[in-house]
């Protein structure tokens, strides 16, 4: 029982808020059983189908070595952009976030917590993707730490974009936009089809998309065993550095 309600207000340190927020968001993500199932199964199905040579031919001598990095990029984009945007959009619609807006929690910490929770979910996804990839004969190359860095940067970039969409548009518009952009980036953003297949004029523009930088970077590391290019790292970094602060700036609680 509480013996006194004498006021002693104050905000907690941001690090403590961030740890608690991330942990809560992650537990809520996992609690949504069907969603977790889909999140885990869809990339594995796509991995299986893109690995079949019936869709289109690839330049890679070993198809699986091209497909696994693509699927990792796809998983990051799906979870951090589409999943986060739709989930957050509906939280706004149903006034979940309005209540948080009346607490000491800053918007930036809420958004960072959501992004970190997605990163934790992706770690699980990537373990499954890699395991399935190995089962199909995947032989990765390169330094895995580069891949970790690319995934983290990609998550912040896509998470920021997803939260920007969710925090400024209506939930129904967010739902449509997040799916449409996902589809466009899948095919025109260097994930399902290498940008080398596009005319060079198109490539000059498309290479600056976050999906292209993430996908190209992951292929450089995992398929070819190189370090990611400064161009890809910088592209992702700029998207991340712009999108998350922009989301924190314009995000509306309700």
């Amino acid at each position: 029982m509480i013996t006194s309600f004498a006021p002693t207000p104050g905000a907690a340190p941001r690090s403590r808020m961030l740890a608690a927020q991330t942990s809560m968001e992650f537990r809520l993500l996992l609690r949504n059983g069907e969603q977790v199932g889909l999140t885990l199964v869809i990339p594995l199905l796509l991995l299986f189908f893109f690995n079949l040579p019936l869709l289109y031919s690839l330049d890679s001598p070993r198809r699986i070595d091209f497909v696994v990095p693509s699927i990792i990029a796809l998983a990051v984009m799906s979870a951090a952009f589409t999943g986060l945007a739709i989930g957050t959009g509906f939280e706004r619609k149903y006034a979940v976030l309005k209540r948080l807006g009346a607490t000491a929690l800053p918007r930036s910490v809420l958004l960072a917590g959501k992004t970190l929770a997605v990163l934790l979910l992706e770690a699980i996804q990537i373990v499954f993707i890699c395991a399935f990839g190995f089962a199909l004969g995947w032989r990765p190359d390169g330094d895995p730490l580069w891949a970790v860095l690319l995934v983290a940067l990609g998550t912040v970039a896509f998470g920021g974009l997803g939260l920007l969409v969710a925090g400024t548009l209506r939930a129904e518009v967010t739902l449509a936009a997040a799916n449409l952009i996902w589809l466009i980036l899948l095919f025109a953003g260097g994930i399902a089809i290498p940008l080398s297949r596009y005319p060079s004029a198109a490539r000059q523009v498309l290479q600056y998309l976050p999906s292209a930088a993430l996908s190209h970077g992951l292929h450089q590391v995992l398929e070819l065993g190189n370090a990611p290019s400064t161009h890809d790292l910088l592209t992702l970094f700029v998207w991340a550095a712009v999108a998350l602060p922009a989301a924190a700036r314009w995000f509306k609680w309700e």
Partner: protein
Amino acid sequence: MSAVATAALEVRDLTKAYGGKPAVDGLSLLVPPGSVLALLGPNGAGKTTTIEICEGFRRPDGGSVRVLGLDPIADATALRPRVGVMLQGGVGGYTSAKAIELLRLFASYAAHPHDPAALLDSVGLADVAQTQVKRLSGGQQQRLSLALALVGRPELVFLDEPTAGMDPQARRGTWEFIRRLRADGVSVVLTTHFLDEAEHLADTVVVIDAGRVVAAGTPAELTRSGAEGQIRFRATPGLLLASLVAALPAGSQATEPEPGRYLVSGEVSPQLLAMLTAWCAGQGVLADDLTIGRRSLEDVFLELTGRGLRT
């Protein structure tokens, strides 16, 4: 600190319109520190709009709002940790979280939070700590919402219809809680359309209708003024007033302002009361809720707005 303690809330000439239709229309409030103010009014009177402006959710069209001496929007970062909020209509926040999880999350935002388990126990929810928020009953959600408002040890709490959806026992429990807050120096602004709630809890009652203050004062002040020489009672509607007046001392008057509610005015004396009750007995009518010289807040409200409230 200034010599004069800063008001917990000071609202001056507040206006807010939605689509050209005024919701709040020149409203002023003053809440001294450590006191309880009840905003009383029917649905649509502007209570929630007012409180959400004070909470920083909405921007006023005109007038000024100072919460603990600060601006609710410009100074939100400094203000939010010091203010506890209970929104209208359910808990808000993550409804698939368990009750204790949500309370722990909110505790993590505060520098010196209450122990979440102890606070949950205090609002009578220890048994449902592991229940998902969305599976709690309406009254349980309200109590969790109260706990969420208090977990950061705020100086000021805004409680928007704190007992809506509660059974009578839980309401009394919540009243007891609000009295403890006041005793411990927490300032409280609550909205209600329950008259007894305002009457029991508030140091100041502000009656609003159509976005304006129609009356303000202590419950005693509001119910006393203009009440000399009046007897009020309830009985079956449609009593013959002429017959009643004829039975009373000369100069007495009788009216039925609402069906079944009677108002007798005149020089209140033991004789008047005796004659009134004798007449009722002769008619086979039981005079219920008979009060002398004291209006209920509901009477005040009816006189001011011509509209009924829930008791």
